[in-house]
């Protein structure tokens, strides 16, 4: 275990964290704005991946597959929110059972449409190389992932902090009733945020599909990790999602490398402790 080992592990952890940020930030925003525990979020991830596979198979363009998958899943999320979740009210148990029911339907639909084989999303050739950085070969694709997550995070941050709609979103997260009282259309905000969160997860699916693969059951593997990110960072906070994603990514990577038998335990045990001690997460607000 020389210095290179640690550099590569940290790099891997950060790049995995970048992927988790894409999934977790959407989940976090949805929870923050609507107080909905969306158990179908893993399905958005996997559906994004599958749709990208279909787009690549028909058009051959990886670049095109990202926006198409994001848009398709955003529409799906929008329909779910409008038709089912919105009329349901605020009972967490009903929301949980409804969204998990949807995730089962999506899982079966994906199995029927794309089959049960492990599929791969091939990124463009440019991203398949390795780049020599400071004596260590780093895969270009993972560097790209980090850059993309950072860019999306920056755009989201600018949107939330600097625009009028962003301010309305933050107001809704803090106190939905009060926000309604001063004339913010929280109904529209939640619709918009749900679609945004779904499309972020779909982008995560396209990006992550290249090194995780896309296979049935991946949705329920991604989902708890995404929740770990959101719980540790704090629900409804973008910065929290970023820190949470980094922590979970690095913890997961080191867990696998150093004590593989306890790898997942070392990921979920901090989540339990965090929930018991400070349920709002590191950066969440009450």
């Amino acid at each position: 275990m020389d210095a290179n080992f640690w550099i590569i592990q940290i790099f891997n952890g950060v790049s995995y964290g970048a992927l988790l940020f894409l999934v977790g930030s959407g989940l976090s925003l949805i929870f923050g704005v609507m107080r909905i525990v969306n158990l179908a979020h893993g399905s958005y991830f996997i559906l994004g991946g599958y749709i990208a596979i279909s787009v690549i198979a028909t058009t051959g363009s990886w670049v095109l597959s990202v926006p198409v998958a994001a848009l398709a899943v955003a529409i799906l999320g929008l329909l779910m929110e409008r038709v089912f979740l919105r009329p349901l009210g605020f009972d967490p148990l009903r929301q949980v059972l409804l969204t998990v029911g949807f995730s089962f339907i999506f899982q079966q639909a994906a199995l029927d449409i794309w089959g049960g084989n492990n599929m791969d999303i091939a990124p463009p050739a440019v991203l398949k190389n390795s780049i020599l950085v400071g004596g260590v070969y780093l895969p270009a694709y993972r560097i790209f992932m980090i850059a993309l997550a950072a860019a999306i995070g920056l755009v989201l941050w600018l949107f939330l902090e600097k625009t009028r709609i962003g301010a309305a979103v933050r107001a809704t997260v803090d106190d939905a009733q009060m926000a309604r009282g001063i004339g913010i259309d929280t109904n529209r905000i939640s619709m918009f945020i749900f679609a945004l969160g779904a499309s972020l997860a779909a982008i995560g699916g396209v990006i992550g599909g290249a090194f995780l693969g896309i296979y049935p059951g991946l949705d329920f593997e991604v989902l708890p990790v995404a929740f770990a990110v959101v719980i540790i960072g704090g629900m409804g906070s973008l910065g929290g999602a970023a820190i949470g994603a980094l922590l979970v990514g690095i913890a997961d990577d080191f867990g696998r490398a150093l004590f593989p038998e306890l790898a997942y335990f070392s990921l979920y045990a901090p989540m339990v402790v965090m929930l018991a001690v400070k349920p709002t997460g590191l950066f969440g607000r009450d």
Partner: protein
Amino acid sequence: MTRAINILTLVVLLAVFAVLVPYTGSFGILLSTRILVFAILAMSLDILLGYTGLASMGHAAYLGIGAYLAAILASKYHFGLDWTFWLVVVFGTLLGAAAAAFFGLFAIRATGVYFIMITLALSQCVWGLAYRWNSLTGGDNGINILRRPSVGIQLSNNVTFFYLVLAFFAASLLILYVLVRSPFGRSLKGIREREVRMGILGYNVWLHKYIAFVIAGGFGGLAGVLWAHTNGIVTPADVTIPTSVDAPHGPWVAIPVTWARRRSGPASCPAPRCRPGCTRRAL
């Protein structure tokens, strides 16, 4: 009077079920056995979900703990394949309850959405151990149990095993039925309806929830032991989120639960809602 009729109908239905199942072929018999095991799990979850109003998303953990206990003892130590099977049933129940007693220390602190999340995280901890602790759990391959126990009678016969599971189901149903009709069960319902008021009336709300949590875990562990011997294999898939969700979702399972609970469930009697951000003032 209606209660007597209800109980009588349930007994008659179970008796008809018990008589008919052996004629449904090997698939039908195995399916019925699985339904009954899941019914035990669902009833134990109902103590939390239906009576106490605690939405646990991690009930698969206790099924997994019971199942892995039975599988590990059987495959590594050849324990529990003769009369010691009864000991394994007791150990599985106790271990499920013990796990719940430990998990409850963390989980009962949380409420609402956070309770859902923390039970989910706890069951993911169990899943993580099952999936990765290869030397103990066999990792993704799981553990095969080569044969069912023979406890004087041969349980390898599917029909015999079905009747054993039916007996466990009936016993669990009876115990839980008595439990929910006891003063303790009544106070659980009170907590579901108005937690704050129960606290003001002098009930130790935390302790009631905790005991309900432990009892539910114990029956979950029992279901796990039976689940392991029903299938002959235990894998990490038994401990995943879909299993936790199947517990309240399974339509078959809902039948005995609904019967036992009659009209008092959350569907007909929704708990008072509290919008996010507001304090529950109404007592």
